[in-house]
């Protein structure tokens, strides 16, 4: 079968290669991976209940994905000065005019409610006004002190020590993702233009974090793509000492990338941070496939014609490359069931890429090798590796028990490390401690109320939110939520009602309660909402007909898994407190959105990884039509994965949205090595080799290809370890580690397993089993 396919490809190689190259040229313009889709729906399915809750909330109260701008003054005196307040006023006004900005919350826009002192001729009164309106009649210091005293501002807009103030920018979420980068840059310009001397501006918030992801992705592409390609070229040249082979391989990798990314776009899928991982995946697998082809072809070409070498190489490698590609593709395809749109698209894109790369490797590379002169001398890859690998094969076969014992110890240590592994995504900790996102989070977490928020969305009939019992429940829930760990601040409609009630009752502390009658609440809220400031405040927290309201919960920056726990606990409390109240409570907001997204990502990756793992054995079982080989493939595949998890556990690298991708990519590489080795081992046994001879040949040839691939990819992706964005550094480091461990598993664990169980995997057993299968 393989021979027939090889002959067919050879016969039509020019047409097929022409099609591949023309296709790549046509698809190249679509491979615009730098055009990142920023829309939330690139991640969330519109059918997802978490997204729908957020949409419903957003329709009512606007988006909660904000930019938090913390202005840090050198001292309290400097912050509470006319200069500083003037800056805040101008800045707030200027930001309001920036495209897609919906609302700005700052001391300059803050509304205060005060009791007016009684006059000799009558009762006192109520003042609902802008905080900074008092600048005409009061000192900046007094206004600052007034702001700190106000529990609605303290933490949100001003730090307790009066040195940091926040400007929170809310956006029209239907537009912001299209213009986000420009809008955030414009706001930075406005801040820089007027920032008083000695003041510092810190930027954070969910929108800023998302934008940093994009910046980092693009920056990494810009910074690391050239060295990755140069190092790939350099390593390939070093291994094969042939510029033609080097450029040919490089060209084949580019063709694979153009096809993959072009088809990805053609299928209507959008590029995002996750889909950018398709590039390294395709490069790694393309290098692995092409190295096998170069090595086999080179070996045959020394003694045979191009046609014979072509057919021999393709017929020999068709099954293992196809199997390896298929297992990886099916593993990736299992991601297509993920709840996260971007993961689904990544799965489909990666699966397509892997199979496209298979076709290109098997058609284009051997065809182009016709232009390469036959090797006359040993290439470095042979000179350097054959001898050592022969000795490795001898060691593995002679000391199989010791190898397995060492392997067992390594596995035990790895398992111990793996038990320390945490599923944990902390977006802020992804950045170095010097990074502005990290430092700004520190300032906002320690001085203000934290960078994360989630909301409790309350829905009921008209006027229900004015009912005393419902407001009392809101108040109770807010109190309960405040006791949760990491919660820094909770604000609800009840706080406003209590505030107005107290101020209307001459600021008597005992009147800081929810009034007992609906009429009283309705009238007091009417008064509060008569002015623009009050109306704007109310619009943020309650619907105009009082059928819906929100409670805002602010959290310090932390792992999204902890946020997820908080969100679930808040949900439990809300359901319990609002039971039988006629009000439906839903936890939503950006905190829930992004913690759920991370949860989905890790969960889908873990289940996909498990699926991929099963897939490897199933495909090996089907391709080799042998349960023995399926069984034999377990140790060399399990070993690297366990070891990578173990190293992660010992080094405190969490399983997060970034590192979990490594496992999938690693498995794609690891099973390649295993399949090639087993294919060669089986072939050699069929040709009459003993177990030791077959192991030696497989180690020298397939181990060599694996080692070459590992060297090329380690040198290329190792540069990612220099990235100050930790997920990129982890990805590079762990990928390099995986390649090395996969190679070690192939040349040590696999032969030692074969030797330890000769009745199952020995040459005679394999021959006997295959003969029985053929007869059957």
């Amino acid at each position, binding site marked *: 079968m393989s021979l027939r396919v090889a002959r067919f490809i050879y016969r039509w190689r020019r047409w097929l290669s022409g099609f591949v190259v023309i296709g790549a040229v046509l698809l190249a313009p679509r491979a615009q991976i730098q055009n990142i889709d920023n829309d939330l729906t690139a991640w969330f399915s519109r059918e997802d209940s978490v997204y729908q809750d957020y949409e419903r909330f957003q*329709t*009512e109260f606007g988006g909660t994905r904000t930019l938090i701008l913390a202005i840090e003054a050198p001292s309290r005196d400097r912050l509470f000065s006319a200069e500083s307040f003037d800056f805040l006023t101008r800045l707030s*006004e200027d930001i*309001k*005019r920036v495209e897609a900005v919906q609302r700005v919350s700052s001391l300059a826009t803050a509304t205060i409610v*005060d009791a*007016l002192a009684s*006059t000799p001729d*009558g*009762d*006192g*009164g*109520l*003042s*609902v*006004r802008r905080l900074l309106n008092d600048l005409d009649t009061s000192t900046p210091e007094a206004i600052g002190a007034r702001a700190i005293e106000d529990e609605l501002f303290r933490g949100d807009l001003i730090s307790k020590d009066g040195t940091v103030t926040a400007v929170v920018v809310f956006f029209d979420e239907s537009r912001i993702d299209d213009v986000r980068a420009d809008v955030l840059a414009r706001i930075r310009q406005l801040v820089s233009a007027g920032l008083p001397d000695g003041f510092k501006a810190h930027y954070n918030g969910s929108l800023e974090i998302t934008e940093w992801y994009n910046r980092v992705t693009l920056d990494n592409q810009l910074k690391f793509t050239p060295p990755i390609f140069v190092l790939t070229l350099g390593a390939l040249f070093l291994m094969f000492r042939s510029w033609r082979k080097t450029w040919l391989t490089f060209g084949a990798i580019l063709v694979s990338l153009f096809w993959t990314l072009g088809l990805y776009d053609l299928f209507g899928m959008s590029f995002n941070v996750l889909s950018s991982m398709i590039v390294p995946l395709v490069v790694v697998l393309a290098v692995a496939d092409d190295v096998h082809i170069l090595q086999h072809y080179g070996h045959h070409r020394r003694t045979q014609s191009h046609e014979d070498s072509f057919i021999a190489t393709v017929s020999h490698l068709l099954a293992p490359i196809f199997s390896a590609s298929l297992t990886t593709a099916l593993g990736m395809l299992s991601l297509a069931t993920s709840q996260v749109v971007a993961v689904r698209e990544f799965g489909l894109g990666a699966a397509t890429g892997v199979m496209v790369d298979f076709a290109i490797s098997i058609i284009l590379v051997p065809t182009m090798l016709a232009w390469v002169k036959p090797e006359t001398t040993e290439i470095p890859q042979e000179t350097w590796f054959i001898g050592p690998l022969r000795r490795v094969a001898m060691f593995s076969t002679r000391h199989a028990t010791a190898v397995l014992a060492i392997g067992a110890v390594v596995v035990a240590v790895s398992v111990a490390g793996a038990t320390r592994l945490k599923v944990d995504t902390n977006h802020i900790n992804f950045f170095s401690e010097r990074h502005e996102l990290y430092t700004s989070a520190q300032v906002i977490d320690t001085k203000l109320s934290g960078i994360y928020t989630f909301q409790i969305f309350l829905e009921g009939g*008209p*006027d229900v939110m*004015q009912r005393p019992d419902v407001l009392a429940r809101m108040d109770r829930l807010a109190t309960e939520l405040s006791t949760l760990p990491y919660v820094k601040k909770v604000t609800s409609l009840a706080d406003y009602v209590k505030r107005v009630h107290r101020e*209307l009752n001459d600021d008597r502390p005992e009147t800081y309660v929810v*009034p007992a*009658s*609906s*009429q*009283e609440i*309705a*009238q*007091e809220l*009417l*008064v509060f*909402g*008569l*002015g*623009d400031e009050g*109306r704007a405040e109310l619009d943020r927290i309650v*619907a*105009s*007909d009082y*059928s819906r309201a929100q409670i805002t919960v602010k959290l310090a920056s932390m792992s999204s898994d902890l946020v997820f726990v908080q969100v679930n606990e808040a949900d439990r409390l809300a359901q319990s407190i609002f039971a039988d109240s006629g009000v439906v409570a839903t936890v939503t907001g950006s905190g829930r959105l992004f913690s759920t997204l991370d949860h989905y990502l890790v969960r889908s990756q873990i289940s996909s990884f498990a699926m991929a793992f099963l897939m490897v054995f199933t495909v090996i079982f089907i391709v080799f039509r042998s349960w023995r080989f399926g069984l034999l493939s377990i140790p060399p595949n399990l070993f690297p994965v366990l070891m990578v998890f173990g190293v992660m556990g010992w080094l405190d690298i969490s399983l997060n949205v970034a590192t979990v991708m490594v496992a999938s990519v690693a498995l794609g590489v690891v099973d390649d090595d295993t399949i090639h080795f087993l294919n060669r081992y089986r072939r050699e046994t069929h040709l009459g080799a003993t177990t030791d001879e077959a192991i030696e040949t497989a180690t020298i040839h397939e181990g060599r290809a694996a080692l070459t691939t590992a060297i090329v990819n380690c040198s290329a992706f190792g540069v990612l370890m220099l990235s100050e964005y930790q997920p990129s550094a982890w990805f590079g480091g762990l990928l390099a580690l995986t390649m090395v461990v996969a190679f070690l598993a192939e040349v040590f664990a696999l032969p030692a397993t074969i030797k330890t169980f000769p009745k199952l995997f020995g040459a005679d057993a394999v021959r006997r089993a295959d003969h029985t299968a053929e007869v059957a």
Partner: protein
Amino acid sequence: MSRLLSLFLITPFLHTWAGNERFLEATTFPQSRSAEERGTQIARQVQDRDTGRDSRSTMRMRLFDRQGRVRERALSTLGMKGGAGRAVPGDRSLTRFTYPNDINGTGFLVWENPEGENERFLYLPSLGRVRRIAGSETQDSFMGSDFTYEDIGGREFEDYTYRLIDDTSRWTAPDGTVHPVFRLESRTRDPKAKFPRVVSLVRQDNFVVVRGEVHNRRDELQKVFDVKRLERVNGIWTVLEMVMVDTLQRTRTELVVEKVEYNVGLTAADFSRRALEQGAR
């Protein structure tokens, strides 16, 4: 003329003087005058109309939020014009909510003070006492609606500059009749104003503002005012139905004047704190 705050003084949007012939005569400007001069003269004439000494009205306000949900409020209002030679130094108004029931009786009294801060008083039945309320801006919301005090009470003439954009436009009334209008642009002199620019359509025959396009600080069209029903009441052209749509916030307020009477003989005592308190009982 002092700033106007109550419904009865809805000068540009609601009322115009009955004897419009005077204005028609005055606005046949020579074409050689600049657009600014012509605009200023039209604005002056809109502003200077006689709107009666006082008024009493009832109206319904329907407030639509961005989800299309509607809240209805019923109000009764009293208004009295102030100024030199009048009973009170500044305009006075008393607005009382009569519906819905939970806010029934809530009253709002405004004493405009030409020399300084306006005084505002509030009466909450649940509290049973009058409370003073600190002031708000002319471009603030009127009773929580999409109208501002300025939309309702009229713009301070001196606070704006004017330009006649054209005098050949036509306005089609809701009943299908077509009227020639002036298209007038007003720009505020206040750099902090929320709505610095308004483009109005002023009917040439009676000088009623029948449409207003209100622009925000980004010069986006934020609000659109439209007259839905315009009739003569006691000889005074009166807008009986109007709507203000906030296109950015996607909210809308409809105001229907159910009954209006002019020159009913109100006195300063009708606008006292006692009246605010007693009237609710």
